[in-house]
């Protein structure tokens, strides 16, 4: 019941907002069409503004992955993950997650196919994906939009919360599904 309610909310959230905001604007006497166009114009400028930041980050991540940097990182992390009892299958997902959203989704897809979505690996990988974020992308886009190049503590905290989310997902799933 709770789950189906939540799914309905997530399915209807966007259409409801798209109806609700202009309706509210009309009631409050806003010239909604002009306001929309005005805002959309700023939105286009924003999209252009974030492009150089995205190009910088996408090229670096792609070069790193193509050259096998990911595999090397993985090999370096193996002793540590073994000691902590983390299933080795989900470690690549955790490493790629902050760097690349599409990369992590394709790894999750592979894991679900190979081990089955309801296996321990499948559940853990799903929980990891659901509790972490493409931190580098978010920081690139958000700070790029306002031209901030000195992000201060945003990056370390973002990566730290990804690590905590990963470890929590592994622990919770090992307790629930092992």
């Amino acid at each position: 019941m709770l789950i189906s309610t939540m799914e309905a909310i997530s399915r209807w959230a966007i259409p409801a907002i798209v109806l609700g905001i202009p309706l509210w604007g009309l009631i409050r006497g806003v010239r909604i069409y002009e306001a929309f166009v005005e805002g959309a114009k700023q939105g286009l400028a924003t999209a252009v503004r974030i492009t150089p930041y995205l190009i910088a980050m996408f090229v670096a991540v792609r070069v790193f992955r193509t050259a096998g940097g990911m595999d090397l990182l993985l090999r370096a992390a193996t002793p540590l993950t073994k000691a902590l009892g983390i299933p080795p299958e989900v470690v690549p997902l955790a490493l790629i997650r902050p760097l690349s959203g599409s990369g992590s989704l394709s790894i999750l897809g592979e894991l679900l196919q190979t081990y089955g979505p309801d296996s321990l690996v499948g559940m853990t990988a799903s929980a990891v994906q659901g509790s972490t974020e493409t931190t580098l992308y978010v920081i690139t886009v958000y700070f790029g939009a306002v031209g901030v190049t000195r992000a201060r503590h945003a990056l370390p905290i973002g990566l730290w919360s990804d690590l905590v989310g990963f470890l929590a997902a592994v622990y919770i799933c090992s307790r629930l599904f092992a």
Partner: protein
Amino acid sequence: MINWIWFFLLASGIVLAGCSDSAPQVTDAILAGARDAVTLVIGLMGLIAFWSGLMEIAEKSHLIKLFARLLRPFTRWLFPDVPPDHPAMGAVIMSMTANMLGMGNAATPLGIKAMEKLDELNSQPGTATDAMCTFVAVTTSSLTIIPVTVIALRAAAGSKDPAGIIGPALAASAISTLAAVVTDKLWRRLSRRR
């Protein structure tokens, strides 16, 4: 820090490629990366423009201010340096709500809007404010109630209970959000003392 990470990704990749004699692949990766970034922006452009348009209506009709007022006690604690009635507060709340509902790419334009509003309070353009860092920390820790994409992938892979991941994912992301908020608060306190 971003400077170093950027350089590390590029340099280690190119050095590694040099070791394994795969320079052509690196050249391809550079071209592909640059093209992917532009493809993504083009795909996102319409969405960003559309949400920015809607948000303009929401702002002109004082809906964002209303939103900000509703959650004031919570956001005042999280963002002590943002005036509670400033439009930035409403934009931040809207973006956080969209993220919690698992809207994914639809949440990105709202986040950008919130950053632009927060930047209006920035006295040193180019440098992140405390409030920006808190906002990004909360966003990247991704407190998600419904991980829509993950559920869809699980269903596609033939799971018996695709939505069964909601509980564990929510618990794990609540823990990571807590970690982010606590660390951010500590960081603020330490940097103020210095």
